[in-house]
């Protein structure tokens, strides 16, 4: 096998990053962190539901007017949406390509199997798929209203949320997805830190604790909404 790197052609930075497993992991880490930041904001926004329909709907409206008059109506929201879609696509494509590569790199399994710490890897893979499907459903349900139970009312997210969480399947899908999110964030955050070179023996405990706290806060924060609807705290 020839030394693949010994070429006169100088690959571009993008090429170098995208062609390398380390680079692709960095893409995953960065896109993951972007999504994580969004989720944190999203979660805090969701909690406004506890202050009543007015607060919550007002917040939703503000999201469309933020940045005005510099930005046009909904522009900020669209910018966020574009960035998020790019992040999701980059994350998913990298994950898919890396997973394919990983599976190819270990074509045959050991005859003697034992439980391996690949738990996290497997969780990341199926967890990622679950989250991807969830996002589709979530957008169709609460953004476009395509699969929304009951009548979807644009501009009245408070009612829409209550509609969704008044169905058994809405709750089930959401809660399962949020548990998957917790596991994904728990390994993903720590993993992203390693990928971006922030990990070290000294920092390992802090990073792991941070990952656990993040995962827990996000999961509980998100799940609190359907639970509140189910228990009638929010109605």
């Amino acid at each position: 096998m020839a030394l693949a790197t010994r070429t006169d052609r100088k690959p571009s930075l993008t090429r170098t990053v995208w062609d390398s497993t380390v680079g692709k992991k960095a893409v995953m880490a960065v896109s993951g962190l972007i999504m994580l930041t969004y989720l944190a904001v999203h979660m805090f926004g969701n909690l406004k539901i506890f202050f009543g329909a007015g607060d919550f709907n007002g917040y939703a409206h503000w999201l469309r007017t933020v940045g005005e008059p510099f930005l046009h109506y909904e522009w900020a929201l669209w910018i966020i949406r574009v960035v998020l879609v790019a992040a999701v696509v980059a994350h998913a494509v990298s994950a898919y390509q890396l997973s394919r590569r990983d599976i190819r790199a270990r074509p045959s399994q050991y005859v003697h199997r034992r439980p391996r710490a690949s738990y996290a890897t497997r969780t990341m893979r199926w967890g990622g798929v679950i989250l991807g499907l969830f996002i589709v459903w979530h957008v169709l349900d609460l953004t476009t209203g395509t699969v929304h139970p009951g009548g979807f009312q644009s501009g009245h997210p408070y009612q829409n949320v209550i509609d969704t969480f008044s169905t058994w399947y809405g709750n089930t899908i959401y809660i399962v997805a949020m548990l998957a999110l917790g596991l994904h964030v728990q390994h993903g955050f720590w993993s992203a830190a390693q990928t971006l070179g922030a990990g070290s023996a000294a920092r390992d405990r802090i990073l792991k604790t941070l990952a656990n706290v993040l995962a827990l806060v996000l999961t509980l924060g998100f799940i609190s909404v359907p639970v509140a609807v189910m228990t009638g705290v929010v109605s």
Partner: protein
Amino acid sequence: MKLTLRVWRQQNADADGAMSTYEVDGISADMSFLEMLDTLNEELILGGEDPVAFDHDCREGICGACSLVINGDAHGPERTTTCQLHMRAFRDGDTIDVEPWRAAAFPVVKDLVVDRSAFDRIIQAGGYISAPTGAAPEAHATPVPKPDADFAFEHAECIGCGACVAACPNGSAMLFTSAKVNHLNVLPQGAPERETRVLDMVGQMDAEGFGGCTLTGECATACPKGIPLPSIAAMNKEWLRATRKAKKVGR
């Protein structure tokens, strides 16, 4: 001790392999695992059978030749090389599964012997400091702070056995590659080639068909020399730093 061995037998790289079962008796607890296999092979030869092929050389845990997956663990149940694993780690009547390293980049040569030349090519891609003989300055011209020297040594301990790849569910060589990158990149002598080294070695690692790192930590658990998992993060940092400076180093 009396043991049942289930050993991977494969005539050559192209043949199909399968597990074969053998009984061995009179095994002493003081034997090394390889001496136990020697005993089996002596019996196989006298019985007119092909002895089990396995790589081994120094038998003192430093050359990195021995490479067996024992009961699903690279180098077996203890954190050491196969040659330093002694039979006192097993009990009379045990059944032991012995398999070769499995990874696409480590094709089987015969039975338990695999081809690890991909590791050599990773080193050839940049795992060195260009210091032509005779051109060296006085050794004390550049003091190296002890923490850096210790960090370098800790990573230089890698014996290139490939247990990290064998243990990794993705067949990734990140721990091996990072050990050499970190050893050389932390030293002042390694600074001039710091960026090209990590870019080229990672590039070669990928070209050899090793998988990516998903930070399962299996590699560091299997490593007989205790190369730590954060070694990988340190290399990632070096790699990202190098891509940022890519222009400066001419790529």
